[in-house]
């Protein structure tokens, strides 16, 4: 059975290597077939391997591939437990559907083979991330998904905006990685190992092994990493721009899987978060604020993909709220359902864009209902699901999170209220998007003749629509199957549970009411009154995302640039480079240079050494206590 676990990773890896070597020669469409087959194969293997979890006769195991740096608890080891199995199923399942969709979507692209090479690299990396049994393997996956994300965002690097977006994603993620790496270092300093099992068992046996302060520091640093990857405040800025990548990439990486890595990481390290109540509050608050903030921006967007991008940020905020209050199952549950309906929304949007010959501006859409019926009906399901209308999937997971947050009481009531408000906004902006796209009179550019996409694109839509519709039933309050399934993975964590059934009913009615209200308001505004896309005043501010990019540009990027220029030109270029260029100028006679050398540079370098030497001397003497 252990071989199966390796094969889950090995299949997409083999696909990646094969395409890397022969991708160009294989070409269209076989490169797409190969890539899809390997990911689909991984899904089947993962499903087979997960059967024992469903039957409840296995609790998880580690599988060692080879020893890497065993003295640090860093080996090439996989952890196969319900949580990693769940993530693997989502990654390979949604991944396979999106691979199939891409076969049609990328049709005719000159770098068709390269695209699937990157996609397979991404799947491999993501599997490493979720299957790693220690922070080392997790980190390798973490960095590799960052790399593949970068490569795919800037896939059309001829477009300057795509190249810039890739760069931005890269830089912002580095900031997150700072925090993550320092957290890993602290964990290693504290436990002497980076192995999940070892660290969590050590805490379980004796919680006093780590002080609350240290645990808080570690978990807050982990949060920085998670916020970078999962696009939370204040590091969310890269995700909207990441929409420059091909739409299947937005669906797979920047909605369904990679951006949930932060949520997964917090859930995986729940044992640590349990020791740090402050961090729990911070995670939940960051999540709630992000959810609300991004939802308001989504209202003002004109580009259909940017609406979905801000929506993703907002929904990730919900997941953070969930895992933040130690409702780990709730967070992971929403991760799963969100993967279904958001992937569907993105692929649907891609289908619309495809139909409109590349147009992404909703101002030029409208009245597409009849033209792209399959796309319309499948997106309709996703829309209802994300709006939180039962019995579709989004309702169950979002309400589970909100109920758990409510059950924490105290200040968390405020977060619950923020969550409810966001639910209303979500229903509103999603409805706005749907109405502007599919209802009303056509506002198409001349010459655009919308047409439905090929079956390779619509079939994944249908499959995802089915999952979005019924996916919520994997974890209802009456039959919490997912909770039982995940139990072994979270057995060391004391999770927050749902409130009493009566309270749950009340909360559910409130949130459904808010959701319906959001849809109705949007209906009145955009269908009944046929309001066109708004401009001016507050709408421009929303469209520009509250000008946060400008703010960052002025306060962080510009001073950073200035500093590096100062460094480049004063500290090095003027003193060193300038002198070298001057001295080393080929026209100068050698003797001339000698005099310059002697009067200028060497002496100043020598003084540098001398000053350093004196400093070392003084310090040593002070430290040794010999003289001073």
């Amino acid at each position: 059975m252990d071989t199966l676990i390796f094969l889950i990773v090995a299949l997409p890896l083999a696909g990646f290597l094969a395409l890397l070597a022969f991708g160009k020669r294989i070409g269209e469409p076989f490169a797409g077939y190969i890539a899809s087959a390997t990911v689909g194969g991984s899904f089947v293997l993962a499903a087979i391997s997960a059967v024992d979890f469903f039957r409840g006769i296995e609790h998880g195991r580690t599988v060692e591939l080879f020893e890497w740096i065993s003295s640090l608890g860093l080996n090439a080891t996989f952890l196969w437990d319900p949580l990693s199995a769940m993530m693997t199923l989502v990654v390979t399942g949604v991944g396979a559907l999106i691979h199939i969709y891409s076969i049609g979507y990328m049709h005719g692209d000159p770098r068709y083979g390269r695209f699937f090479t990157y996609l397979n690299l991404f799947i491999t990396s993501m599997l490493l991330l979720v299957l790693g049994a220690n922070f080392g393997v997790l980190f390798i996956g973490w960095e590799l998904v960052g790399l593949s994300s970068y490569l795919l965002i800037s896939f059309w690097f001829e477009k300057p905006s795509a190249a810039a977006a890739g760069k931005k994603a890269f830089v912002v993620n580095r900031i997150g990685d700072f925090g993550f790496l320092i957290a890993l270092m602290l964990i290693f300093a504290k436990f002497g190992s980076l192995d999940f099992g070892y660290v969590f068992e050590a805490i379980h046996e004796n919680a006093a092994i780590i002080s609350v302060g240290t645990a808080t520091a570690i978990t807050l640093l982990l949060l920085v990493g998670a916020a970078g990857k999962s696009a939370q405040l204040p590091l969310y800025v890269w995700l909207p721009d990441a929409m420059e990548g091909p739409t299947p990439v937005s669906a797979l990486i920047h909605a369904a899987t990679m951006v949930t890595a932060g949520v997964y990481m917090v859930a995986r390290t729940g044992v640590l978060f349990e020791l740090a109540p402050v961090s729990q509050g911070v995670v939940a608050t960051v999540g709630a604020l992000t959810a609300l903030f991004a939802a308001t921006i989504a209202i003002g967007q004109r580009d259909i993909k940017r609406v979905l991008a801000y929506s993703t940020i907002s929904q990730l905020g919900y997941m953070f709220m969930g895992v933040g209050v130690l409702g780990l199952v709730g967070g992971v549950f929403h991760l799963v359902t969100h993967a279904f309906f958001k992937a569907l929304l993105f692929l649907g949007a891609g289908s619309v864009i495809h139909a409109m010959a590349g147009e992404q501006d909703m101002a030029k859409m409208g009245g597409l209902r009849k033209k792209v019926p399959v796309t319309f009906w499948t997106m309709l399901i996703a829309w209802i699901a994300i709006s939180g209308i039962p019995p579709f999937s989004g309702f169950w997971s979002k309400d589970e999170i909100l109920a758990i947050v409510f059950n924490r009481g105290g200040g968390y009531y405020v977060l619950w209220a923020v969550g409810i408000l966001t639910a209303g906004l979500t229903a509103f902006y999603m409805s706005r998007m749907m109405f502007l796209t599919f209802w009303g009179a056509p506002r198409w550019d001349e010459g655009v003749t919308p047409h439905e996409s090929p079956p390779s694109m619509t079939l994944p839509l249908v499959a995802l629509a089915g999952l979005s519709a019924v996916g919520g039933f994997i974890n209802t309050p009456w039959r919490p199957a997912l909770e039982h399934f995940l139990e072994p993975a979270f057995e060391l964590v004391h999770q927050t549970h749902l409130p009493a059934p009566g309270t749950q009913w009340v909360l559910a009615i409130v949130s459904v009411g808010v959701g319906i209200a959001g849809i109705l308001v949007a209906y009145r505004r955009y269908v009944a009154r046929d309001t066109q896309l708004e401009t001016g005043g507050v709408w421009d501010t929303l469209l520009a995302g509250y000008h946060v990019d400008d703010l960052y540009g002025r306060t962080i990027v510009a001073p950073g640039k200035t500093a590096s220029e100062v460094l480049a030109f004063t500290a090095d270029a003027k003193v060193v480079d300038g002198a070298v260029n001057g001295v080393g100028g080929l026209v100068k006679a050698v003797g001339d240079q000698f005099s310059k050398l002697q009067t200028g540079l060497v002496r100043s370098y020598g003084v540098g050494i001398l000053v350093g030497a004196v400093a070392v001397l003084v310090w040593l003497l002070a430290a040794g206590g010999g003289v001073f």
Partner: protein
Amino acid sequence: MNEIAFLPIAAEILLLGGAVLILMAAVTLNLGPRTWAIIAGTTLGLSFLVAWVQWWRIDDVGSQIHYTGDFLRTPMVVMDYFSVFGGGLVIAAGGIALLGGWRLVGSLEKRGAEYVALVLLAVAGLHIMVISANLILMFIGLETASIALYVVAGFTRDRPDSDEAAIKYFLLGSFASALFLYGIALTYAATGSTSIYGPTGIVAFFAERAITEPGVLLIGIALMIVGLGFKVSAAPFHQWAPDVYQGAPGAAVPLMASGVKIAGFAAMARVLTVAFDASISDWAQVISALAALSVVVGTLFAIAQSDFKRMLAYSGVAHAGFMLTALVAGQSGVPGLWFYLGTYAFQLIGTFIIASIISGAAGGASPLDSYRGLAKRSPVLAGALAVLMLAMGGIPLTAGFVGKVGVFAAAIDAGYLWLAIVGLVSAVAGLFFYLRLIVLAYFNDPDPALADEPITAPRSSRLALAVCVSFTFLFGVLPWPLLNLTSEALPL
């Protein structure tokens, strides 16, 4: 007891013999580069083999200290796993570096023989630094190597900046050597010995008594740190490095950059963690400060560079800082230091070989712009550059990552968590300039003037580069053979 123990100094004998042979072959027999190559290759190969034999010998009979034969019986040479590993590393690095830069030898014509001989002499000097059990001998090794390299730095006489590099290197290097020597003198004043081991050595001195007035000793230690800190280009003693690396013949820089670092750190580890192990609480603080300063200064300045070789020089300052980070842990940091040093040396050689292919073996400036679109001009070279840059940046699955983990773990274990964090933050920031090369090579179009110009690399450079790249990758994925070796390579 007047028998000479040949085995511990066999490498020196071979290298010096080889250097003399090459000169004779060139001058008296008028033999060409092919002969020099055979002699140099044989010499270096045999010397490397000697390292294996020495290792087995230690397996059998244990570490040994060898004395001068006279009545004073001063310890001179030590043969322990540490010296054998370090010596082998110096020889390997010297061999690969010479191979990678062989193109220069051809272009130098007659003077090529002098160049090869000087390289062998430099390697011999560096080897002496690693194996010496006596500070005076260590200094002699240091000077032998340094003088040879001063000459090498100025070897392409037709370029003024090469002269400038040589002079600068010479003047500042002499200054540092003087400080090192003065440190030895003061150590002698404080302990009555210049030898590390032996019944009258420094280690024995500390074992017998505690120093109550450590002033003189501490000044001695400080000056030796400065002297060696200059050689390994740790901040704030690093300023020579960018000028020299840029000015010296491109093909000679790999040896200057890597070999000196290996021997310098080996000497530093021997002096600090063995001879002055008793004062570790004093010097570790200073070393930690130098480490932090090197890492930060190296990274910041490297970001600001527009020339590849200067960038590498500053990144070398940062790498010196990472290695100093391991050193703060004393002897328990030595394995981490060795692994980092061993893998970094080959990354450095590989990168400088690429630089010398792009900018010419004779050297000179190497603007970053000339790496634009490298992937289109030479995919293989771009791939090698990418692997090496990722390794220097410490990306997992390259040896650079394992090395960084090792030095940080050592520092953390020694209680220097802050230093590890400073290093880590700098390492992540440093990714910027390593990855910039990859972006330039892969995502930019080549300069139209250069686009059609083919990149030619002689087989020798390609072979050396292949070795460096495969080492880097191999020890990243399967580091444990080297990890096992380094964990044994402790000083006596």
